[in-house]
Each structure stands twice: as structure tokens, then as C-alpha cells.
């Protein structure tokens, strides 16, 4: 049963992603992307990562894509649909991506899994995913967590500088 679910989800995620980048109408592309995020969140749920699933919906579908949509809405869709879908360099891009894909396909059967950590599925189910992540973030990973907060601060400052500053 799990295999069927995984198979469906991976297929849907791939199909939706391809559909999203081939749409000429950017609003449709963004909406397809949101549907894709829902499938991704379901995938996380199936893996027992419930916190990640909720955050995926909240942050990506609920916040980031709304902002995307917000920007895309003010585009002139008719003009957008007239232009070429892809930049002129797309054959190069697609061949690079295909090369990368082939490399990954070659190595897939050589993948070994490293040592397992202390958080097995059973431990996570018992402790709840949110608690496990929270504890780790504020103990073992507190330093990366703080650096990540600096990154967000820089992003805010940068956005304001680039968008709002009047010329001196």
C-alpha cells in the first residue's frame, strides 16, 4: 500500500512540476505549483514527518506562493502568453539537466546508507515529530539556527534596500 502511495505521489509531483514550468499563463503555473506542494506535504506525512508537512503547507503554499501569486497577478497575462515560453538557451540547459539525471541514474544502485541516527520512526512517533525537531533545534543545532536567523534578517534588510530606498 505504501509503495502505491509513494508511486502515485512521485508521479504526481513530477507531472505537476513539468506542467508548472510549461504553462504560458504564469497564474496557472503558480497554482499547479501549489497543488504540487500539497502532494509533497502528503509525502512527508506518509514518512511520518508531520511537522514538516504542516510547515510545507504553511510556509510554501500559505505564504511564499501567495506572494508569488501576488506578483504574478499584476503581470499582463496576454503579453506574457505571446512571448516564447523558454529563453533561447534552453537546449543547453536541458542537456545539462539530462546529463545530471543520467549521472544520478548511474549511481543510484551504488547508494549505501550511512549509520542510522537515534531518531527512528518509533522514537519520533513516541515523542512526536514537532517536539523532536524543537528540542534538536534549540540544543544541538542552536548555532545553525541562529545563523539562519541572521540570513533572514539580511533578506529583510536587502529587500527594503533594493525596493524602497530613495536615491540620496
Amino acid at each position, binding site marked *: 500500500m505504501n509503495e502505491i502511495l509513494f508511486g502515485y505521489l512521485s508521479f504526481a509531483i513530477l507531472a505537476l512540476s513539468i506542467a508548472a514550468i510549461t504553462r504560458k499563463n504564469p497564474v496557472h503555473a503558480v497554482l499547479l505549483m501549489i497543488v504540487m506542494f500539497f502532494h509533497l506535504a502528503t509525502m512527508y506525512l506518509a514518512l511520518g514527518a508531520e511537522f514538516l508537512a504542516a510547515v510545507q503547507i504553511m510556509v510554501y503554499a500559505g505564504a511564499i506562493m501567495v506572494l508569488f501569486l501576488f506578483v504574478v497577478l499584476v503581470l499582463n497575462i496576454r503579453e506574457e502568453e505571446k512571448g516564447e515560453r523558454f529563453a533561447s538557451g534552453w537546449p543547453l540547459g536541458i542537456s545539462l539537466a539530462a546529463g545530471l539525471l543520467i549521472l544520478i541514474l548511474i549511481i543510484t544502485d551504488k547508494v*549505501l546508507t*550511512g549509520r542510522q541516527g537515534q531518531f527512528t520512526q518509533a522514537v519520533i512517533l513516541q515523542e512526536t515529530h514537532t517536539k523532536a525537531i524543537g528540542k534538536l533545534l534549540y*540544543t544541538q543545532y542552536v548555532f*545553525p539556527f541562529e*545563523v539562519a536567523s*541572521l*540570513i533572514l534578517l*539580511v533578506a529583510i*534588510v536587502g529587500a527594503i534596500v*533594493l525596493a524602497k530606498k530613495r536615491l540620496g
Partner: protein
Amino acid sequence: MPDIGAQLWLLGPEIVLAVFAFGVILLDLVIKEKSVLAYLSIAAALFIMFTMFGRQGTAFGGMFLADGYGLFFNFIFLTSLCLSILVSLKYLPVERINFGEYYGLMLFATIGMMVMASAGDLIMVYLGLELMSLSVYVLAGFMRQSTRSNEAALKYFMLGAFASAFLLLGISFTYGLTGTTQISGVAQYIKDNGLAGNPVLAFTTILYVAAFGFKIAAVPFHMWAPDVYEGAPTPVTAFMSVGPKAAGFAVIGRVLTVALGPVSSEWTGLLIVLSILSMAVGNILAISQTNIKRMLAYSSIAHAGYALLGVIAGGPEGLASMMNYLLIYTFMNIGAFTVVTLLRTEGVKGEDLSDYEGLSKNHPLLSALMLLFMFSLTGIPPTAGFMGKFYLFVAAINAGYLWLTVIAVIMSAISAYFYLRVVMYMYMKEPGTVIPVQRSTAGRVALMFTGIAVLLIGVQPTGFIQMARSALAGFGI
């Protein structure tokens, strides 16, 4: 959990700099005279530079390593920060971008670099890289009214995002293979489980080399460099050509030579290709440039190629020569960019090679210093550039890469053509219109400082290489 105070003390430099960065951004709201913020930033950097040494140990369960290697790179970053800020002081009002956030972002970028250089974990490498890159993207697009600056920021951002994606893919493969993201842990696991020769690991290596190649602007990952260097504000270009590049090398030293040390044969070949291509493409394409910022961009690509020799040679000697070279490169490259910046005045761009025609007649001292920097970038004795290259080449030859060294020497000879062309323009051509020069005391201080450093290291080279060698004690290679 070890004593939290001791761990924070190890993090002291980063914390102090972060506090100052917050301070600069907050004070910007109340202070009208933005140069105060610049001096504050310089004071912070100098304070850290004088107090940071002597820290030794690991913090946060090995996430952060305070060691000589990291501190040496911190010294490079802080030096380039101070010099770039000095250069910016008079440049920003000319471009009408005199905002306090500029200094805040510079400080944040430096924190990112310092985190990268001291990272003991692949997660920290990534986060430091993002912090640095994000700040520099914004700095590159700081001239909002200039389409070139916008283009620079956008290009840098797009390609930087690609590089980050490669890095993340590499990290996730490494984690999948070894079950850890700790740099020393990865090396240990590879050794213990005989993973050398595993194709997945080889693939991971490619991803890392691609990601770091972007950051140090090595061919074939250099496409962004010329446009970004040209479009960004000149002091930012100076900063960007030195800081992030050195940070990229710092991470290469940690990730490739330590984490992937057991499989060094797999990445050495890749780096050799990168190095040769960088030296060739950088030096040859620089010849046809007429914009001095573009020329210096290609030159910076070529210098990444030289510095890679040190990594390829490996071992304490190779790494020490690489670190030494990056420090020297900091002085000479920022020096050259300082001259370029000083030529930018109200109404005069001063970026074109023809602007340098007969410069020595009107500005003899400035021209003399430019001559010094150009000599140093070429690698002509008795300048620092010569000594830097000398140590690199010796390390490479000792490691058995004589043929590679020969290529590097030939490429250096080619580079003489375009570096010395600037000198020729300054000294052997008649001046057209008189090009004014910024009246910037701070710029002059930077110029003087870099000039003296370039000369001093040229005649008294042992100090820094000794420092680099001793910094590598206990590095784990």
C-alpha cells in the same frame, strides 16, 4: 554539554561583529552622517582583529571550529572589510547611494565568511555561504538606478542560487552515504568503511567542486564574474573579488581536503582541470578588455586558478601557500580597485582603459602605486605577488606537479601583457583630458596601507607564510 560561556567565547569574533552589524543598522535610523557608521564598522573589525587570536577549540558539538586556519582566514576577511569600507567612504556619495545599510550588509557578509571559514559541519558551510552570498547579492545591486548594477545583482543571484542547489545536493548525498554532516565525521566514516572509489562519493565530489567553483569564479563556473564585477559598485567589486573568493577557498580547504581527504585523488583531477582552464581563460580573455573592471574580473578568475595550485599540491605546505597567496591577493587586488575607485568622480566614470592615458603626468603618486599593484598582480619581484606565486609554485613542484607549474608560469607571462598595458597607458601616453581624482583621505589611507603591504611582503615574505604554516598546526591533514 560543555560550559556555554567558553563556547560563546570561542564565537566571540562573530558575536561582536553581529552586535556591531545590528548597531549599524539601528543607528542608521538616527544618524545623518553615514561616515560615522563606516568608522564604527572599521573600529569593530580592528577590535576583532586584535583580540581574536589565541582562540582554540570546538563549540556547539563540533559545529564551530576555532582554530588557526579559521582565524587566518578571518584576518583576510576583516582586512578586506576594512579596506573596502575605507574605499567606499567617498565613493557612495558620488554614486548617490550613501545609505547606512551598506555597511550593515558588509558586516553581515563578513560574518557569513567567518562562519564558513570556521565551519565544522556541512550545515554551517551552507548557512555561512548563504549569509555571505545574500548580503553580497544585495550589495551588488546597491545602485538601484543603474541597470548594470541590477543586472549584476540578478545574474549573481541566479547563478549563486544554482551553486547553492549543487552544494545542497552534495551535502544531502554525503549525509545519505555517511549518516553525518560533521566534516571530520565524514572523513572518519569514509576511512572506516572503505567508501573510497564509491561512484556516489565521486558524484558528490563533482557537486562540491561545481558549487565552490562558482564562489571562487573558476572556469567553467566563471560566467557571472565579468558582468557582476563590472556592474557592481566598485568598492563592492573589490570586496567581492577578495572576501567571498577567500571564503570559497577556506571551505574548499575544509570540505575537500578534510572531509573528502580520503578520496583526494578523485577531486585533485577535477581541480587541475579547473585550475588550468581558469588560468588560460582568465588571462587570455583579459587581454581584449577595455574596461578596467572587466579586465580585473578576468584577472581575478586567473588568480583563482593560481591559488588552486596550492589546494592541488595539498598538505600543510600547499594549503599554507594558498592561504598566503589569498592574503597577498587581498592587498594587491583591493589596492588596484582603490585606484579605480578614486578615478570615479562626479561626471567621470574612470573605468575605461583610455582614462588611464598619461595619468602619471597629473597624478604621479597614484600612478606609481597602480604600477606597483600591476607589477604585483603580474608577479614581478620585488612585490608581494611574486613571493605569493613563488611559494605556490614551490609547493606544486614539491608535490610533483612540475608540468602544471610550467603552465602557470607561461600564463603569468601572458598576463604581463594586459597588466603592463595599464602601466604603459599611464606612463607612455600623452594625457587627453585631465581626469580628476577623488579627494578622499580614507581612500588614500587604504592606498597607502595596501601599497606598503605589497612592498613589505615583497621584500620580507617570511612573516605571513610562517603565520599560515603555524595556523595549520592541528588542522588535521
